[in-house]
């Protein structure tokens, strides 16, 4: 083995710094979740006798019910996005549906601030007597998950040679069967990545949940924000709740990071 050169040393130093930078808040929150309110005022206190008090408070606060609601919202949002988005992405990839502006126009929706979108959602939910239910939250989440999932899948569909679909049609299948039995299986990796990607987006959203379902139907981020009470911020309990929220995201990112890059660059190279 050759001796590491200067470049290697710099690279390792930069990566270590980045690692510490990313890990620091997580470690801080993890430590805080085991501290008593007094210890909380000493952020650099590393050695202390941990308390289970925060975790007990969090578990009793119904955090898992909120996590369950968040998961339900995420799963439903992603399922609808995948069914609609895969067909949309296919049409855009193969038939240039909507012309060349579609791809860009779809992402333009992301530029609109959620604050602009939330009021119409609230008005509609109110008119349908659905405030403080998960239904408006799911629709609100679809407004940003569906375009991203669709956009993400376009590159994957473009990579499927059209002769595969033509072969299936000649082999005796309808267009729909050719899509479902032949084209779709080719993009399963993309669909898997899009699912995790979309779920993470939905899981992390606080804003829509806070306004559309602040009470009994609170989703996880809303439940976390509820530890900011009129008696002050319960940092310990909040930290424990945050740990519950980030674990699934960290696990998911670990699985998708490579596909995520592939999907994003797959779409990006085209334009």
């Amino acid at each position, binding site marked *: 083995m050759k001796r590491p050169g200067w470049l290697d040393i710099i690279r390792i130093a930069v990566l270590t710094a980045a690692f510490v930078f990313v890990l620091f808040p997580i470690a801080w929150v993890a430590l805080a979740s085991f501290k008593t309110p007094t210890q909380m005022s000493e952020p650099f206190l590393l050695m202390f006798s941990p308390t289970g008090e925060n975790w007990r408070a969090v578990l009793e606060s119904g955090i898992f019910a909120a996590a369950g609601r968040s998961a339900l919202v995420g799963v439903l949002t992603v399922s609808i996005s995948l069914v609609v988005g895969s067909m949309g992405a296919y049409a855009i990839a193969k038939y240039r549906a909507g012309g060349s502006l579609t791809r860009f126009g779809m992402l333009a929706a992301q530029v609109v601030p959620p604050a602009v979108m939330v009021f119409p959602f609230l008005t509609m939910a109110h008119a349908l007597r659905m405030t403080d239910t998960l239904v408006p939250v799911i629709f609100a989440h679809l407004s940003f998950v569906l375009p991203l999932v669709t956009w993400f899948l376009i590159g994957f569909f473009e990579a499927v*040679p059209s*002769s*595969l679909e*033509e*072969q*299936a*049609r*000649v*082999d*005796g*299948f*309808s*267009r729909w*069967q050719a899509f479902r*039995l*032949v084209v779709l*299986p*080719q993009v*399963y990796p993309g669909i898997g990545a899009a699912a995790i990607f979309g779920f993470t987006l939905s899981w992390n959203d606080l804003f829509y949940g806070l306004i559309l379902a602040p009470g009994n139907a609170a989703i996880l981020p809303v439940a976390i924000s509820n530890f900011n009470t009129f008696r002050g911020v319960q940092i310990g309990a909040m930290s424990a709740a945050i740990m519950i929220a980030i674990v699934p995201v960290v696990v998911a990112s670990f699985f998708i990071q490579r596909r995520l890059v592939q999907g994003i660059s797959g779409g990006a190279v085209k334009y």
Partner: protein
Amino acid sequence: MASVTFSGVSKSFGSTTVVSDLDLELADGAMTVLVGPSGCGKTTSLRMLAGLEQVSEGTIRIGDRDVTDLEPKERDIAMVFQNYALYPHLSVRENIAFPLRASKVARSEALKRADAIAESLGLGSMLSRKPKDLSGGQQQRVAIGRAIIREPAVFLFDEPLSNLDTKLRVETRTELLRMQRRLGVTTLYVTHDQEEAMTLSDRIVVMRDGRVAQVGPPEEVYRRPADTFVATFMGSPKMNLIDGAVSGGELRTPSGLRITVGGPDAALVTVGIRPDDLSIRPAADGTAKVELVELLGPRAIVTVQAGEHRLTSVVGSAELADIRPGVSVELQSRPREVHRFDPKSGVRLSE
């Protein structure tokens, strides 16, 4: 089993006409080869028969059924694409059995038939492999297996051999021909390779710029090409074409080249001589000079320069001893094998 009829079929993309007024009949059980340079409309014609391209004008019939506006799945055809289009997510066995999923054949029965076909194609030991783990030749055989399992009325081949290496191409060509003869299924085969067209076909259709240039059995297309395009397209090395006047059985060009060609006198004519029918002999007062000798084993292709003409001749190894680049030669043709074309239109002149 069925014949196929194209009547007055045209295809345009916007203002570009790719195929115009195609009239063609594929005889029941015969192998018809569409051949022509790229962009001549041969693949489009095949895809129209498959139902993958809409017909702009005219009708296509399979047997007595008008299939012009039918979906591909209703046409009872099978097709082998140039890139084979094997389903990457399915194994060899599932790929071959796949078309049966569209019909009401039970899964176990379908797999049994797929196994039998794979066995007959020499794929018996690789049934559970995925396409990416197969060689080009094996992939090609899987594609053929998938085409024959449904016993369709018509086979379509779109340059199926062009992705194989030369040796495999010749072997597969023979196999393909044997299979087509055994099954007796009407076949339309598209290629740009004139040699493939000659060896495989019962009937050749030479296309050029979206039109049929000539239709006929291969030996007729070769012996009596309808015009200078077909004459130079079919046959390798390609036919020599020389413009000049014929008198007393000798062709003279303005640049002074002389070749014995026989036949009646003509003021201005395009004479076509296949390299095999043009012999050269060293002569001090010859009108041509040897430029290049390409050895092909027992024979050689000799290129000679004569005025503004560059002609080729196929020479046997016995005569090759005296023929070296730079040597002056005399040209002579076998008069019965000389073709004459109208110098303006390029159309063959009747003998």
